[in-house]
């Protein structure tokens, strides 16, 4: 799809080994299209693994703090992978396409590490599981927005109604005449379809969707708009909002850790964090005023000079008409509405602004739009 993005005058950004469209000239308009009509983003760079075998479900249970052996065929579930110390290594989704076949996605930059991680844990063991890297085989797009379902209706005979293809459904079928894997997921706050097709048909799919959505306000959006939209939902980006000390319990993913599972990589470390309670948490912060704090800028206890955390990401949301951020903060300070001081630069230079802790997503906190 590279040439298609070029024709759309994409501004490029480097992400790992890949080039991705950062934007198509107007980030605010791209965000607005996703919230008010529909947006289309190329997510082909996501790592993709085909995991098959009679022991695949049990193996995925071992690799993750949550369960996949009980995932029903035709469903998809969020995944975050931990190391032995309970630190988040990578995240993505896993869809069960058949009783012994799973479609496993990784972040753009972590594919090789995750692939090796899986092969390492399989090497010499008794598990009957095979792992095949299918990243190059599949091109993928995410179609999101209130008009996304109508656009899908125009390009597929599959029943994409809310009842037939509910949030977190996974299906296989033809989209724009091409065999596809369709995941009813999204990380940008609206109804979304992640569509994977053989890469030889990627350009065809991209063009067919843009054509089908032309009169419904569909427009392409890039990585920068995606970052804003994700931040509105307070979705952490592994590697950006997390680091080499981040536990899922402290990163707001405590619901992933299933203490009743007999064992999984990182179990003891995760349960020790649960037992002692989080010392710091990743939380949303509403930025008061027009100035945005820099990545890494300190969060300071109000009325003092005591640093209590740091900003990982801050963006201006035109939808919300305010600055929003994610940051790590001492757990005792992560109270809804708590007023904090935000340094604008890293260190003491650059002045300060005021922030308010927001523990729920900035946009659609109940998730109704995502599940619509």
């Amino acid at each position, binding site marked *: 799809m590279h040439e298609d993005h070029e024709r759309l005058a994409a501004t490029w950004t480097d992400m790992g080994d890949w080039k991705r469209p950062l934007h198509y000239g107007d980030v605010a308009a791209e965000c607005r299209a996703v919230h008010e009509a529909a947006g289309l983003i190329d997510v082909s760079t996501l790592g993709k693994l085909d995991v098959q075998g009679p022991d695949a479900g049990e193996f995925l249970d071992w690799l993750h703090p949550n369960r996949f052996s009980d995932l029903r065929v035709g469903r998809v579930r969020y995944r975050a992978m931990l190391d032995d110390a309970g630190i988040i290594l990578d995240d993505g989704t896993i869809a069960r396409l058949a009783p012994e076949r799973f479609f496993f996605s990784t972040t753009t930059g972590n594919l090789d590490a995750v692939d090796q991680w899986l092969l390492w844990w399989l090497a010499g063991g008794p598990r009957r599981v095979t792992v095949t890297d299918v990243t190059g085989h599949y091109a993928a797009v995410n179609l999101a927005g209130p008009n996304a379902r109508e656009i899908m209706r125009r390009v597929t005979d599959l029943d994409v109604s809310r009842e037939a293809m509910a949030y977190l459904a996974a299906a296989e079928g033809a989209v724009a005449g091409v065999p596809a*894997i369709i995941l009813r997921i999204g990380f940008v706050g609206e109804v979304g379809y992640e569509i994977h097709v053989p890469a030889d*048909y990627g350009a065809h799919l991209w063009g067919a969707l843009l054509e089908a959505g032309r009169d419904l306000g569909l427009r392409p959006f890039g990585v920068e708009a995606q970052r804003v939209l994700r931040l509105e939902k307070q979705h952490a980006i592994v590697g950006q909002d997390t680091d080499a000390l981040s536990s899922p319990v402290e990163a707001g993913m405590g619901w992933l850790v299933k203490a009743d599972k007999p064992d999984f990589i990182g179990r003891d470390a995760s349960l020790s964090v649960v037992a002692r309670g989080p010392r710091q948490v990743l939380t949303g912060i509403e930025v008061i005023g027009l100035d945005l704090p820099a990545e890494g800028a300190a969060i300071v206890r109000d009325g003092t000079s005591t640093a209590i955390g740091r900003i990982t990401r801050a963006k201006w949301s035109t939808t919300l008409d305010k600055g929003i951020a994610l940051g790590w903060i001492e757990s005792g300070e992560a109270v809804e509405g708590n007023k904090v001081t935000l340094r604008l630069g890293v260190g003491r230079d650059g002045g300060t602004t005021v922030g308010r802790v927001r523990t729920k997503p900035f946009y659609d906190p109940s998730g109704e739009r995502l599940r619509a």
Partner: protein
Amino acid sequence: MSLGRDPRAAVRRSALAAVHQRLARGGDAANRWPMSYGDPDGERRAVAGAIGLAEPGLYDKLIVKGRGALAAVRAAGLEGRPGRVTPAAPGGVNVWAIADDEVLLVAAVNTPGGPAIQAVDVAALAGPIRAAGLAATDVSSGWTVLRLVGPRVRDLLEELVAEDLSPDAVPDQGIVQVPMAGCRVILSRRDLGDIPGCVLLVARDEAEYIWGALTEIGAAHGIRPVGGTALVVGPAAPVAASATGATR
């Protein structure tokens, strides 16, 4: 999911489609498979006297993995020897037996403007193979097939690849996996009649880069991109078959 596709509804594009279009200078190759880039005689001379570089066609590919993979492929009625490509008749399934537990099944598909073949549906093999307890995964778009043919191919490969690829080390149809210009490449020695040659399987996302590296480094050896016509030997050997399978 079936690999079968409705050609009326969708356009299947090679990873090198933009390269073909540039070489064809916006000509017929924009929508048809490049059988030539405008100088078929010159392209044949490159194959006969120096090096021809081609993407010979589009292929469906099914990878079979697991203990007993090659045995399961044989049980499905295909021939295969470890470390070798077993070529098929035109339109058949070429068996790339990378190892006993990893086999790639490769079959040409019809392309607009390309040679007409009776293509087989590789996906039909997936069912019985999976029933035998093996993993079978469609990787059709994941790998691009490249063809190098010409008397100076070995000179070029000596520059690009550290491994010994001489005929003594790699017999005709033998498979080796080598790093080439920093990328993983699965290479099979495959002469074209009496002319030395090889077939390369390269990752789709690296295909354009590898094509560029071969063109740049091969310039000193007289390399030239060639269309399918230049790869035809004898009266009626289809180019798609010559890429991964029978050539004479």
